[in-house]
């Protein structure tokens, strides 16, 4: 689960110990009810080995690599300090110019996909939240595309969007659309295609999370609103939306991060075309590092992208949280 959209959580664990655990700790310092001390390290050892070798070490090593001119094809990997980062700031260097173009592509995709993936799944979840026959069946159908990987989605939509023999153009032309829209090689159609495919692929995922959030809203609140003769919109506005706030923050955050990590769709459907217009940041970094083997430069780009993503998620988090707080105050 390291790369799926589910890999990000909205808040840390850090839950305070329940009273029983605190009592147990007070009784026997250094031991929990289930044992502790050395035994705990035995339980932790297998995971911590994996975690150290494949999470902690790479994170540090990646930073180290980013300070070198690390070309796999050359014998020497000289220290360049911040050289790789400085080259990124200089648009005239090849890595600088192309990198920012790929960042722009990622930004365009994110700006287009996130609003759709925040609003549409909420609509679907609201429909699914009513009591009716076959609700679980529909929920499973809408979720189904997400179970298929991006590779299947990519090759499938390459067929469906084929300008000459694709079913999308066939049916669009029947209803009067222009002939042979080049979904994969022209703008803005390439963006429409990439965003559309991604919405189709992940809508169900967000809808399922919304649905769980909707089912957590106490029914009494709706009953109370009905007694107050609140309209359907009023109930949505004053009961549903405030009740969904934490889930909404979570959805916005994971959707931004998942969109900013977009790679497979562009790789398989447009290949970055037209030109390098739809080559996303992840795609460019992967090519720079693992096809051109300039790993130092690619590692530096990874960290720049990562800093951007963490800033964006911090901003989202505080934006929503602040509004939540002020709303609560106004009411009190």
């Amino acid at each position: 689960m390291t790369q799926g959209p589910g890999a990000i959580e909205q808040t840390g664990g850090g839950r305070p110990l329940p009273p029983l655990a605190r009592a147990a700790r007070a009784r026997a310092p250094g031991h929990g009810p289930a044992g502790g001390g050395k035994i705990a390290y035995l339980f932790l050892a297998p995971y911590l080995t994996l975690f150290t070798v494949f999470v902690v070490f790479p994170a540090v090593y990646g930073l180290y690599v980013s300070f070198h001119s690390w070309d796999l094809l050359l014998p020497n990997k000289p220290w360049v300090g911040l050289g790789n980062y400085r080259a990124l700031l200089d648009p005239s260097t090849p890595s600088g110019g192309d990198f920012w173009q790929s960042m722009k592509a990622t930004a365009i995709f994110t700006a287009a996909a996130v609003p759709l993936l925040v609003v549409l799944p909420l609509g679907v979840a609201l429909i699914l939240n009513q009591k009716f026959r076959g609700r679980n069946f529909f929920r499973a159908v809408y979720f189904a595309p997400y179970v298929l990987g991006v590779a299947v989605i990519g090759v499938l939509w390459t067929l469906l969007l084929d300008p000459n023999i694709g079913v999308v153009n066939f049916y669009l032309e029947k209803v009067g659309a222009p002939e042979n829209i080049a979904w994969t090689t022209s703008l803005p159609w390439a963006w429409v295609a990439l965003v559309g495919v991604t919405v189709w692929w992940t809508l169900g995922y967000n809808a399922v999370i919304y649905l769980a959030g909707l089912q957590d809203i106490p029914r009494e609140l709706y009953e109370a609103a009905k007694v107050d003769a609140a309209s359907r919109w009023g109930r949505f506005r004053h009961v549903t939306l405030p009740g969904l706030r934490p889930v909404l923050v979570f959805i916005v955050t994971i959707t931004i991060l998942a969109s900013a990590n977009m790679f497979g769709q562009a790789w398989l459907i447009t290949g970055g075309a037209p030109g390098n217009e739809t080559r996303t940041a992840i795609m460019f970094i992967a090519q720079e590092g693992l096809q051109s083997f300039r790993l130092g430069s690619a590692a530096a780009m990874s960290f720049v992208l990562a800093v951007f993503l963490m800033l964006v998620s911090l901003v989202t988090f505080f934006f929503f949280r602040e509004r939540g707080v002020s709303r609560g105050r106004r009411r009190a």
Partner: protein
Amino acid sequence: MAAVAHDRPAPPKARSAVLTVLASYAALIALTVVFLAPLVYMGVTAFKTNQEATRIEPTWIPKEPSTVAFDAILNRSEQTPVFRWFFNSMIAAIGQALLVVATASLAAYALARMEFRGKKVMTGVIISTLFVPPIIFLMPTYLLLDKLRWLDSLLAVTIPGAAGALGVFLLRQFFLSLPKELEEAAVLDGASPFKIFWRVILPLSKPALATLFLLAFLTNWNDFLLPLFVLFSPESLTLPPGLGLLQGSYTTSYEIIMAGAVVATVPALILFIIAQRFVIEGVAATGIKG
């Protein structure tokens, strides 16, 4: 709300309720078509001849059903051994899911229930990695796999992914929610911590472990970015990079590419249909808890 069937003429309120239900069903069915039609077309195309698969007028039922595409990818294909990819994917996904469940359950139990020095810091560090954008691991992981001589082997796509913190996070939340009395009784009986874990905790945790296994399996089964760059030779690929190779080798032989996509889809879809509730509730849980 659904079964509003009165014989008497419905009062205005009930009539609007009926309209709501009808509108909802219309929307539900339209969405079902949108979500299922592409998948159906994938399956149908895999059973077409190349001539039919590349016709402008699409057919939703093959005029001359044919298994040439499957013959092509399963038998005569040294460059694109789809069957081999299938087994590679199975080994990697099952291996990684088992590794995740085994290591994460042990670690999560220690973090949830035991007291030891450095527990808070360790929990904080592990969980905070969930917020780190995964791209920063790609280059160093590649170099590490190179040093370990794991490039182009299934180890490269099985082991590193098992180090992710989501499993530990989810199981820790689950263990924290279990009542402590069961363990405390076992402690009084003199059971060892491992025995308690094995005999008391794990049996209670079957649904949580199954959910984690499924999510880990599906994540690995569908993983694309890492396998694409750390596996090279045709016989060592998993299905996702394999599909990329199929697309590159058979550009307009869509029936062949779709046959490969069907091979990659069927196990995931079967798992999903059998364990739909676990998968969906597991995903929903990642959103609610935390």
